[in-house]
């Protein structure tokens, strides 16, 4: 680990004026301490966010607000979250381990870095870590990598489960730097790699995520997160689906669908949602809609299985929610 200085400011104003362009925030530390040990991240200054007030989980007529410093564990079992948005609770409880969920913050979760082995190994090239150095995953080991949103520069997946649930629910992040604040949908917040995979999102240097806003969606009580992985627990996804379904008799009134493990960012699927809306609640509807998820998929040597797997993941989540099982 490279040397750094440590500070623990008590106001957002102080924290967002860290005085060093390359300083880094730390919340739970479960991403950044790991990456500093690997020397993937080498901040000269680490700014601890834990004395800041960005906490609280509240439900209002507009929807849900989660302070960025809330822990994954506390958020998952919060009664309002569990009752109104099961997909959020399930995505969190299927993430990492009990210990890591006790440490990790919601804001940090959304900013965790890819688990691509080349990104994590400073002895190999990686365009995300060192722009212009190349992407060995494209012709190398790429079983865990993305099939959607990839470019000739980068094929790494975004690893957050929570983010998949949140883009499905059309959540936004509130950002703050100094006194200026802005609100972005999470879907817009994340960027595709294109030629600049080191720019993963719209966060400016020194800018904070202060809170997450999830719009009110009464029928999200019927929602779920299905995660398929190499082992049953404590593992990142091969594919995952965050799905909410609004059913009226044997008709689908509305839906929300996003997938994980397959995209270079959490992958929202408005086209699948449209293909479900107004259709009969049948397996045929599900199969036809899920096909649209992979319309633009570009498989690599080791991950073509994800094309089928992600469709089946969506279909199985829909079967469960639609009560067809």
């Amino acid at each position: 680990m490279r040397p750094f200085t440590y500070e623990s400011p008590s106001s957002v104003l102080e924290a967002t004026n860290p005085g060093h362009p390359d300083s880094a925030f730390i919340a739970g530390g479960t991403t950044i301490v790991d990456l500093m040990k690997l020397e993937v991240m080498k901040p000269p200054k680490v700014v601890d966010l834990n004395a800041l007030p960005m906490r609280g989980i509240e439900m209002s007529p507009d929807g849900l607000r989660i302070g960025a410093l809330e822990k994954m564990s506390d958020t998952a079992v919060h009664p309002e979250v569990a009752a109104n948005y099961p997909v959020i609770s399930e995505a969190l409880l299927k993430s990492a381990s009990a210990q890591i969920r006790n440490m990790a913050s919601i804001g940090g979760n959304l900013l965790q870095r890819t688990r691509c082995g080349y990104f994590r190994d400073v002895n190999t090239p990686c365009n995300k870590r060192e722009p212009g150095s190349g992407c060995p995953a494209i012709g190398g080991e790429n079983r865990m990598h993305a099939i959607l949103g990839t470019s000739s520069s980068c094929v790494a997946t975004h690893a957050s489960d929570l983010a998949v649930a949140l883009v499905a629910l059309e959540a936004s992040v509130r950002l703050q730097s100094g006194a200026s604040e802005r609100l972005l949908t999470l879907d817009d917040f994340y960027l595709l790699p294109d030629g600049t995979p080191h720019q993963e999102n719209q966060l400016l240097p020194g800018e904070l995520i202060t809170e997450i806003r999830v719009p009110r969606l009464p029928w999200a009580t019927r929602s779920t997160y299905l995660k398929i992985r190499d082992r049953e627990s404590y593992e990142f996804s091969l594919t995952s689906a965050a799905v909410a379904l609004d059913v009226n008799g044997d008709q689908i009134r509305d839906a929300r669908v996003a997938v994980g493990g397959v995209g270079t960012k959490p992958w929202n699927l408005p086209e699948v949602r449209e293909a479900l809306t107004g259709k009969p609640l049948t397996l045929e509807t599900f199969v036809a809609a899920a096909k649209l998820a992979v319309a633009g998929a570009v498989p690599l040597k080791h991950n073509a299985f994800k094309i089928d797997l992600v469709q089946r993941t969506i279909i199985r989540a829909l079967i469960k929610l639609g009560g067809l099982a």
Partner: protein
Amino acid sequence: MQLPADPPPDHEDGSSRREFIRRLAAISAGLTVAAPLGRAGTVTEKSNLQGEPPKTDGAEGLIEIILKVNGNTERLVVDPRVTLLDALRDRLDLMGTKKGCDRGTCGACTVHLDGRRVLSCLTLAVMAQGKKITTIEGLATGDELHPVQAAFIKCDGFQCGYCTPGQIMSAVACISEGHTGSDSEIREYMSGNLCRCGAYPNIVEAVKMAAAKMKGEVN
């Protein structure tokens, strides 16, 4: 390849236990892709288990911290890079907490902060200030083992024992969180603790036995 001997039992002196761990670290360094470890410089330089020379650069960046460990207040001067795991093991001689992966992937380093289980390898020591830190050494009451410790012995919840302190710290939390409703619930909520020896069935039994005892169902 020579495998390490079983860890000496707890009553043996720290130096032989350290020797065991040193040997284990040497062996695992040969097995895994060992990335440079973030051992930071400390004021009183102690032998470095990983063989990396202690860093002395940035000595002006040392900070004084106060940790409350197992009821004791400890004052340390550390580099901000020092993890809670390294502070416990290398500075406070609390060798019960184990370093497995040092990357958050194994659970061997599990300790409690204010009663919640966390990974000490991904916690900066400076950030554990003001919290009540409990390690495996702080679990027993005098000579009386904690019910989870007793249950691990009774159920043979280990083979080599390397993962055991982390398993036990995790199990204590798993029980207090109320996640012992079924075998599968125990397995899910204990999944953050890997066991290379595959003692999982007996670990589940130990958690069940301790949970029952702590609920007062069994004497």
